[in-house]
């Protein structure tokens, strides 16, 4: 009987409009953060692709280190930044804009590292040929992007997965305000904190389903790329 009640709780939850609003906000915030971080990542990757100076190598290593930086640290830095005097009048805090930007800051090292890896792999394969054909740096970069687009799409989905699953940044900078900055991960944290485990588990299931769909898309793209 107890299990039946759990199942009915789950079922009822799926008809809750708030749940879909929170899911939609989660996807929107993470999609926008992914878009920003992929663009920044590609710019950084382009700068580092053919750079061989000590500074470039140092920056490369630094990016790798920033991939592992805890989300709460980025959240804290973003909070300090957005609550500083520059933004005092803008009332930007406790909106999804700083959440997106903070998440983009978190995801950019990962995006840059993965993009750089993909571009370097293709540069090793065809870089010398492109140079010998007379391709300029910008032509070469455009060709490399076109050559490895399935890898870049897979990269952006991995970055999105990391974004949608993280809780530290969005909790600190967004504050989990109902109807404004609440996203799936912060809602799960809240439900678990106050002991409503059924709802926390149901929300986690939605997150897992999203992660599975994204993983499926990555695998499909990788298979297509291999063939």
């Amino acid at each position, binding site marked *: 009987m107890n299990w039946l009640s759990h199942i009915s709780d789950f079922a009822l939850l799926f008809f809750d409009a708030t749940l879909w609003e929170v899911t939609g906000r989660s996807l929107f915030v993470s999609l926008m953060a992914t878009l920003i971080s992929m663009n920044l990542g590609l710019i950084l990757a382009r700068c580092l692709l053919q750079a061989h100076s000590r500074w470039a190598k140092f920056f490369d290593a630094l990016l790798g280190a920033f991939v592992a930086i805890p989300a709460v640290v980025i959240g804290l830095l973003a909070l300090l930044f957005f609550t500083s005097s520059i933004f005092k009048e803008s009332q930007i805090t406790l909106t999804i804009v700083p959440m997106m930007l903070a998440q983009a800051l978190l995801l950019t090292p990962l995006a840059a590292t993965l993009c750089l890896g993909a571009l370097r792999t293709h540069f090793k*394969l*065809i870089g*010398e*040929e492109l140079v*010998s*054909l*007379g391709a300029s740096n910008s032509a070469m970069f455009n*060709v490399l992007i076109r*050559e490895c687009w399935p890898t870049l799409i897979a990269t952006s989905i991995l970055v999105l997965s990391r974004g949608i699953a993280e809780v530290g940044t969005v909790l600190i900078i967004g504050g989990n305000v109902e109807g404004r900055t609440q996203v799936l991960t912060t809602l799960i944290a809240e439900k678990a904190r106050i002991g409503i485990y059924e709802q926390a588990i149901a929300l986690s299931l939605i997150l897992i389903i999203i992660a599975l769909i994204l993983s499926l898309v990555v695998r499909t793209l990788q298979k297509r790329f291999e063939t």
Partner: protein
Amino acid sequence: MRAASVQFSNITVDLRGATRLHGLTHTLSGTGITALVGSNGAGKSLLLKVLHGLIPITRGQVRWAKDLAGERRALMRQQPDFLRRSVQENLVFALEINGWKSNQARLRSEEMLDWMQLEQSANLMANTLSPGERSRLAMARALAIEPAVLLLDEPTASLDPESALAMESVISFVQDRGTKVILVSHSLGQVRRLASDVLMLDQGQSIFFGPTDKFFSNPGNPRASAFLHGAGFSLDEAV
């Protein structure tokens, strides 16, 4: 007729902590085919890449004659790579990045496909071609831009004898039209048929430079003689 094409002055190239080319100093003529010969690792392909500007020179300099300095140079690598595009798109790409307009590039690519007998494969993905077809596509791509200097790195290495001879006739034809050809080859028979002069390298050092006839009759260097008389190649092949 061009007077002189390229002068190397004391070219030295260090790579990965070792000196790969040691102070090469020569002047190659502006016409004909110069063959670069030597054992594996002698530095032939490296010299070709240096001439194309792919690898920086540690010391010394390469000076192209005035009439070649601003002209196009094309390199056909031993193992050419292609973009994940069709055969024709690979040609169009090479032309477009060399300043050809899209419609002209398409017309030129069709001409090249016809010439290299690749018109049936125009819409196939370039990476699905056989090794022989890949060589022909690489040659088409190199010639498409109408280079003044053509650098060839073992262009017939993956071809059967019939296709190799067909490729040789293309090289001769291009040379007859005034293109300077610098050819790396392990086939001494091919060198004898095509080249007007020979530069032989051994462990990054020049051990012979002169007319092809002299190279095959009396290279005047014990290592070059040993090379000709069987150091890795049979005398029969040379004749």
